[in-house]
């Protein structure tokens, strides 16, 4: 797919003759080089998982969080440049807070996704700003049920049943499509996501990784939170088992 946009790729405010904005596409490449992030919408909630690639053995497990709560009912998993992601999360938290101050109720997930997308898009319109180099998977549970959104560096935002971004997104999407999401509970979804992430992790290219997962579902009383430790361990164990079974073939 790579085509050189010589001359037309120096600024985000320049179109190429075939109608592309190369800077935005390059921003998307930053996302493609990061650890995989997956989100699925199950029948009773949303589950998100991140393949957190560990760059140094000195890193404390559990640090460098990639999934953030935006509001009690929603959270974001970030792929790409982590610092950029932090900005977006901060903005999302601000939007959620100001919406509640004005309208007196929690921000609908659809509205939140729209506002985040607007903000990301905003930063692709001015020459003195660079686009955000991150993809966001936003999962939330409001009055209209559980919802999953994905926001790309271009500012596009769609609602999904299942979404994946990062290195292993193609493999992940293939695996997600095999799942029957409408019949799955979040408990089952946690196990499935762990299995998928373990499966698509490339041992050769990247060494170690840490699995980070969060959910918002009926079981968590519609609050966005880290997946409980016992369930996470159960998921990891199941994932490792599935890998061994696969390798044994």
């Amino acid at each position, binding site marked *: 797919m790579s085509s050189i946009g010589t001359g037309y790729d120096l600024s985000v405010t320049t179109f190429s003759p075939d109608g592309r904005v190369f800077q935005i596409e390059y921003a998307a490449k930053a996302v493609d080089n990061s650890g995989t992030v997956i989100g699925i919408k199950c029948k009773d909630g949303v589950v998100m998982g991140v393949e957190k690639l560990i760059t140094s053995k000195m890193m404390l497990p559990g640090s460098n969080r990639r999934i953030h709560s935006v509001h009690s009912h929603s959270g974001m998993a970030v792929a790409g440049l982590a610092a950029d992601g932090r900005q977006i999360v901060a903005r999302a938290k601000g939007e959620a807070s100001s919406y509640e101050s*004005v309208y007196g*109720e929690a921000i*609908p997930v*659809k509205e939140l996704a729209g506002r985040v997308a607007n903000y990301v898009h905003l930063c692709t319109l001015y020459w003195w700003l660079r686009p955000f180099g991150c993809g966001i998977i936003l999962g939330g549970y409001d009055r209209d049920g559980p919802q999953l959104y994905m926001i790309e560096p271009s500012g596009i935002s769609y609602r999904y049943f299942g979404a994946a971004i990062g290195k292993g997104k193609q493999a992940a999407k293939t695996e997600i499509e095999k799942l029957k999401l409408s019949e799955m509970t979040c408990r089952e979804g946690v196990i499935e996501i762990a299995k998928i992430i373990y499966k698509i992790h490339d041992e050769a290219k990247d060494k170690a990784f840490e699995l980070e997962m969060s959910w918002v579902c009926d079981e968590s009383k519609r609050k966005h939170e880290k997946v409980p430790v016992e369930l996470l361990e159960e998921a990891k164990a199941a994932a490792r088992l599935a890998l061994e079974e696969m390798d044994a073939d």
Partner: protein
Amino acid sequence: MDSLNLDEPHSMGTTIIGVTYDGGVVLGADSRTSTGVYVANRASDKITQLTDNVYVCRSGSAADSQIVSDYVRYFLHQHTIQLGQPATVKVAANLVRLLSYNNKNMLQTGLIVGGWDKYEGGKIYGIPLGGTILEQPFAIGGSGSSYLYGFFDQAWKEGMTKEEAESLMVKAVSLAIARDGASGGVVRTVTINADGVTRNFYPGDTLPLWHEEIPAQNSLLDILSAPSPEPMSM
């Protein structure tokens, strides 16, 4: 007594009421707008629409309550477009409250916001002078409401039917009109539920009479419209 001063600001002495029933809400009000002791409008409509499903009863300064309603209607309209579905009663009430509270030094208006939405059903929010917001099963406001506290304590009950709520409303407003000089005219009601909005109108002379009230009678000035007498013939 001060002589008649027509430059006094229009106030709506008023009796306003909002009541929830099983399935929706009924809003009611009298129709007197006064400038001092002069009745500037004896048939005003104090129940104003904010959205298709949310209305507000206005009391206090006519100007202040109108401007607040206008602003809230404007904001709600934009919010509805953005949201893609009707606004909830709670959101409408919160917008009213923010304006009332943040401008408390300049405004003098008590409002009752009532409506129906698909998430919470029928809801009433009372927003008195300082900008407090309180969700209530029923709310009363305006100068005439002073005479209704005891009445509602006894007469209101949970889970009324639409007809019971409406007749309670009309009875209450007419009781207040009987005692409060700043309330009078006709009784207007607005009923809001899942099926939509219904307006009703009860002319002053159809209202029940209470203790020592004199029945309404046609004006003695009717003789003015009588034909002039035939000239006598001699």
